[in-house]
């Protein structure tokens, strides 16, 4: 490819628009003015075995065992899974359930690590030139490093480094949109470590061999854009500045903006030859390949009125949120909500004792004046502002009525499962109806029903085949009995016949 050698930053790319969207107050400047700081070493680290989509890792350590920084402590299980590594050197205290960052406030199996303060690395294999590795070696390194999508969803990255069905990847997209208000982790990462981000993308491009490499970034981050444009010089990567509009960082929306393609319902971008990765993920891939470093820390935005020193911190995975917040002037007395993620799609934490995980891009502790609690819900007046703003082009108010009436078949027919839960409908609703909550509930109910249906189907099949088996056995028995009876009758007849014969014989004899 010739174009691979020529810089393309000057070429103007045609952009496309997705339907709907909103412009909420960005609130980014409160946290993006300061450089990333490295968080101090916490007294303990809580490391959930599941920090990603897929099956949880399998613990490789025993209580009391000493581990080195970067040593693997849990192994990926199955195709879609991710390994876990010790973020620092120390002693494994135990393996037990702790509350984790999850909307339900549930607990999950975690490894507890007590740091020894030495922060001593295990042996790492660095690699100066990734081109000397084969794509499969790079895939293995990424899997070994336990990298999972750092934009929030946490899908194991190695899986996304395999071209779909061995097809060609037309477009590799690096998602730097960061459209959620308040969050600036990607912004700061790019400003300060653009070469890592671009380096990671080059490695991914080497593996995937895409037709084009595009970084999509919203125009509200001029410093980050400049840093990227500088870093992509002499590469084939194109930095595309897109207009700021929430949710342009949504995977489906970004694909539409950059390629005019839509991800078909129920499919993933890979199915249409597009691969999306997050900038944080790219930087992690770079560090994994270049220095052999596994994923043991991430950049998290700490923001909201209840945190005094707002900004971005590089924090070890497993650091308890309450401890972390305390290092930066947190006011628990004023804070009634702590949100993991942004204000549009983040979820409130049940407890601040949960640890930072691979997907924790932001911890938002707002005051009540900053983000007022929802006011009383009024009746839906069917004004359709939700439909006008919906980026998935659904009819939110219809879905709301169907969800309320539990008419789930109609809700599904109105494409309930294409809802990306971006929160826009609730945001624009003049009657303050928590619409997204209704959809989540309806989706949950439908999934539950399907599961129940599946179970009862299985039970019915089991019962029917048992009936059939019993029936068959009965028939077989009857057939056997009949055969036996026939055989007996035959034997009898034979006997009789021979007896008569004998009698006749004797008669003849006499």
């Amino acid at each position, binding site marked *: 490819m010739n174009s691979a050698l020529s810089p393309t930053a000057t070429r103007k790319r045609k952009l496309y628009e997705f339907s709907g969207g909103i412009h*909420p107050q960005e609130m980014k400047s409160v946290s993006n003015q300061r450089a990333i700081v490295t968080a101090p070493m916490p007294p303990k680290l809580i490391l959930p075995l599941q920090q990603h989509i897929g099956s949880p890792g399998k613990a490789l350590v025993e209580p009391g065992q000493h581990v080195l920084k970067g040593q693997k402590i849990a192994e990926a299980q199955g195709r879609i899974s991710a390994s876990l590594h010790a973020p620092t050197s120390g002693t494994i205290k135990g393996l037990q359930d702790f509350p984790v960052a999850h909307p339900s406030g549930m607990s999950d199996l975690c490894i507890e690590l007590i740091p020894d303060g030495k922060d001593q690395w295990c042996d790492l294999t660095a690699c100066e030139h990734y081109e000397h590795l084969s794509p499969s070696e790079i895939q293995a390194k990424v899997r070994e490093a336990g990298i999972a999508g750092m934009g929030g969803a946490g899908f194991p990255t190695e899986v996304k480094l395999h071209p779909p069905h061995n097809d060609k990847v037309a477009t590799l997209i690096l998602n730097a949109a960061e459209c959620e208000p308040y969050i600036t982790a990607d912004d700061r990462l790019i400003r300060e470590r653009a070469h890592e981000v671009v380096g990671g993308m080059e490695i991914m491009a080497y593996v995937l061999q895409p037709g084009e490499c595009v970084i999509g970034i919203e125009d509200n981050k001029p410093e980050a854009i400049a840093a990227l444009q500088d870093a992509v010089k002499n590469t084939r990567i194109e930095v595309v500045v897109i207009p700021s509009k929430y949710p342009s960082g949504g995977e489906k929306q970004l694909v539409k903006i950059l390629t005019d393609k839509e991800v078909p319902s129920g499919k993933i971008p890979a199915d249409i030859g597009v691969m999306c990765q997050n900038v944080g993920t790219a930087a992690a891939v770079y560090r994994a390949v270049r220095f052999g470093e596994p994923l043991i820390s991430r950049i998290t935005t700490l923001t909201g009125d209840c945190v005094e020193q707002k900004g971005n911190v590089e924090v070890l995975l497993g650091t308890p949120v309450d401890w972390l917040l305390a290092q930066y002037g947190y006011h628990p007395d004023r804070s009634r909500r702590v949100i993991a993620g942004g204000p549009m799609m983040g979820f409130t934490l049940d407890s601040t004792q949960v640890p930072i995980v691979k997907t924790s891009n932001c911890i938002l502790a707002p005051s009540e004046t900053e*983000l007022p609690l929802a006011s009383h819900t*009024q*009746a839906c007046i069917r004004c359709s502002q939700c*439909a006008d703003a919906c980026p998935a*082009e*659904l*009819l939110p108010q219809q879905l709301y009525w169907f969800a309320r009436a539990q008419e789930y078949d109609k809700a599904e027919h109105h494409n309930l499962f*294409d809802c990306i839960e971006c929160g826009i409908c609730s945001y624009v609703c003049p009657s303050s109806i*928590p619409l997204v909550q209704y959809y989540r509930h309806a989706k949950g109910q439908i999934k539950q029903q399907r599961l129940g249906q599946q179970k009862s189907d299985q039970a019915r099949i089991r019962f029917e085949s048992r009936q059939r088996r019993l029936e068959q056995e009965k028939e077989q028995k009857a057939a056997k009995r009949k055969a036996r009876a026939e055989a007996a009758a035959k034997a009898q007849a034979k006997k009789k016949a021979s007896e008569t014969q004998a009698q006749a014989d004797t008669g003849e004899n006499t």
Partner: protein
Amino acid sequence: MALLTLSSPHIKGPQKTANMMRWVIVMALPGLLMQTVFFGWGNLHNVLWCGIVAIVCEAAILKLRKRPVAFYLNDYSALVTAILIGLALPPFAPWWVSLIATAFAIIFAKHLYGGMGYNPFNPAMVGYALVLVSFPVAMTTNWAIPSPLLNQPPGILETLSIIWGQTPLPDGYTGATPLDTYKHEIAHSTAATVLASPIFGSGFSLGWEWVNAGFLLGGLVLLGLKVIPWQTPAGVLAGIAIPAFIFGWNADQYTPIMVHLLSGATMLGAFFIATDPVSSSTTKLGRLVYGTGIGVLTYIIRTHGSYPDAIAFAVLLMNFAAPLIDIYTQPRSYGYVNAKRGAKPKDK
């Protein structure tokens, strides 16, 4: 644990139902001003009187339904209903006609269906249609003659005493509207003769054209503020204009297009009445269909029916159709090739 567990999103946009209703009220004022200039104090009185009746009825029925009165009154929806009735009723409509229309709209058309958001029919038009069919004389003969045509237009006190039944309505104060006049006169006359009547003025219909311009202006502002969608008024106006253009090209036979558009309740209907979100269609395409339906029905009833104007009946008829329209005008969602149709998936 003192932390709150709440569902996302955690921020709320600035939109409020009450704000939308307030804008509708404010933007109806230019039209009301023009009504007052050209048809006297009657409409202003009716708007105020209907407003009082609506608030009293709303408060009483909310109390009866054990709902928080202030919370619901603050959404201004009752006031919007009242104002629409007040703008639509003839300026000299007796006080009890306004009272019955408004009370019926609030109590029956709105609250007996479940209150705000649950009424299948536009409450203002239900109230208006009820008095229109019940008291045809009071409703169809009381529209005021434009003030410029009167030697001495009635003042506030005289208007009040007529409306409140203290003084009988003098003969010269009311008369047929331009729409009515044209429809009846053209059968045995020519366009030039009909239009020579002073009620058509030098433009299309004296006074009415300014009233319609006032509602058009207010409506355009509402469009700009995104309080109302553009599809509904565009549909209504197209639904009236297209048949009026096709059939009305011969002004000697049918009412011409400009009289249709700038007379009667055309602009009030297109921008303020048809756009009631609760009883209208909710999809973009659906609103276009819904609006066009109202426009076409208005044209048909105006031309071939026995009532001079038709917005109320057209709106009510299309209210019936709105749920069906919604079902068949689903948008194509992201990630689909085609839009789905119908309420449920077709059986295999």
